[in-house]
């Protein structure tokens, strides 16, 4: 207790008066919340953390049957199962962080109404906790990848771009946090959003190249539109890194990168604005 920092409390000044220094001083809290998020998810379940291995496998299996066999959607020369599970790596991480961030105010209401800490710690903690599931999903991918290589003579292999995976993760996290925090702040005032979020997520998945390769989109207009979707671009990039198959153009990176920038700025600003008097609006 040698130094006694002085706290200055005054009316909020605009959207971007964000307490960055305070935020970075709460790293310990961030990790604690992230750990809590991981440990709570499998409380009161029988299979526990095994669900994080089972879930992507089951989803990829369903996709293989429905979109592959039944609908006959191509997978750009990749084994169906690997194609879907590669896309799901991106999608599951994105969805987890986005939905977590979007519910920041609801899930931390008890804390927010009683104690102060930089509120941004909560959404960001989801980007950390979901890294655990992303890691487990990646493990699943490589298990099946190894199986394919040894038993069905698969000739695909990861590219050196795999080293850029952390950048890709940051890319997805930024997208999810930007949009998630925007949704979170709007939800504090307009509860309607809570009901529409599942539909938004569903539409978002179908407009990301998760169940189809970007190359499969023949309509030039839609193809251009899809280049603005950071999640779809990330899915293509992930499969390219992992198996050398995927279309990532500089133009798509620029377009969706711009979308991320806008979403982050809006999300940060709106979240900062909303957290200020959140307690007065619940």
């Amino acid at each position, binding site marked *: 207790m040698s130094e006694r920092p*002085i706290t200055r409390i005054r009316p909020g000044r605009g959207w971007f008066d964000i307490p960055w220094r305070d935020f970075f001083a709460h790293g310990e809290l961030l990790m604690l919340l992230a750990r809590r998020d991981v440990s709570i998810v499998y409380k009161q379940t029988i299979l526990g953390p095994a669900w994080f291995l089972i879930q992507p496998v089951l989803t990829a299996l369903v996709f293989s049957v429905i979109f592959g066999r039944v609908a006959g959607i191509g997978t750009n020369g990749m084994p169906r199962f690997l194609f879907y599970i590669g896309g799901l790596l991106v999608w599951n991480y994105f969805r987890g962080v986005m939905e977590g961030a979007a519910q920041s105010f609801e899930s931390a209401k008890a804390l927010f109404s009683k104690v102060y800490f930089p509120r941004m710690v909560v959404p960001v903690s989801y980007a950390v906790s979901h890294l655990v599931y992303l890691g487990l999903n990646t493990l699943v991918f490589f298990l099946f990848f190894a199986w394919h290589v040894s038993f069905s003579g698969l000739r695909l292999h990861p590219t050196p771009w795999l080293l850029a995976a952390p950048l890709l993760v940051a890319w997805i996290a930024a997208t999810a946090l930007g949009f998630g925090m925007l949704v979170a702040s709007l939800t504090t005032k307009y509860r309607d959003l809570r009901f529409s979020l599942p539909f938004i997520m569903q539409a978002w998945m179908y407009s990301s190249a998760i169940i189809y390769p970007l190359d499969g989109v023949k309509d030039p207009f839609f193809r251009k539109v899809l280049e603005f979707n950071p999640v779809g671009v990330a899915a293509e990039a992930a499969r390219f890194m992992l198996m050398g198959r995927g279309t990532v153009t500089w133009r798509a990176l620029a377009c969706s990168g711009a979308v991320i920038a806008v979403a982050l700025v809006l999300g940060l600003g709106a979240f900062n604005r909303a957290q200020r008097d959140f307690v007065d609006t619940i």
Partner: protein
Amino acid sequence: MANDDFPEDLAIRVRGVGKTYRLGVIDRGTFRDELLYRILRLRGRDPRASMGRIGDRETAAPGLFDALDGISFDVRRGETVGLVGRNGAGKSTMLKILARITTPTRGVALIRGRVGSMLEVGTGFHPELTGRENVYLNGSILGMSKKEIDAKFDEIVEFSEIGGFLDTPVKRYSSGMYVKLAFSIAASLDTDVLLLDEVLAVGDAPFQTKCLDRMKEIAASGRTILFVSHSMDNVRRICSRCLLFDRGRIAADGPADDVVRVYLDSPGERPPQNTA
């Protein structure tokens, strides 16, 4: 840069703090009001003048309501100050602003050192976490490291009397246990300023006495306490000084005994209605 006009011996300085709530923003006829409010603000006019203010609490029409209006006071380090007044007078809002749960509409407040708070039954507990985990959660919210919390852990557990339930999620705690743990955490963690709102309302009598003794110790060790209570006995027992809040303003400030007397003698003092 922040120390302009904030003498070393002060723990808290509040200057011209006001908090205006807009009533009915979410309920009815509201989008129009909100639009009107924004337009007036954009034009640089004071919306309060044009939209009608609610001075009288009984009015239910949408408008603006000053929970706090031009509050100014100083608290020296090591002082224990009681905040008294009827429900809805602004005491809790004042503490919420100092705890940074909500922001003031006007004015500025300065606080020196770490702030611990325990506001209206309970503290920042996460219901799914155990008592033990919540101790660490609260410590890290204050910016303490795990090691610092470890050092205080036994003290907290011993004071709280909840030893056997330490690994039970706090959602299964009784309200008494909840308050006991919350108070122990607030009292034991390294804070320079403690904001306590009605903390003794739930605990049993022996625990209340224990808490009051503890608060005296805390004050003696040079930490500062702001204490909101409706129990004039408790206020008189631990506070040297009192602020009387009345409809968002400070009506009296002075030695606890005098202020409590003023409060109890004030006309219209009745069993409090629930307007907070």
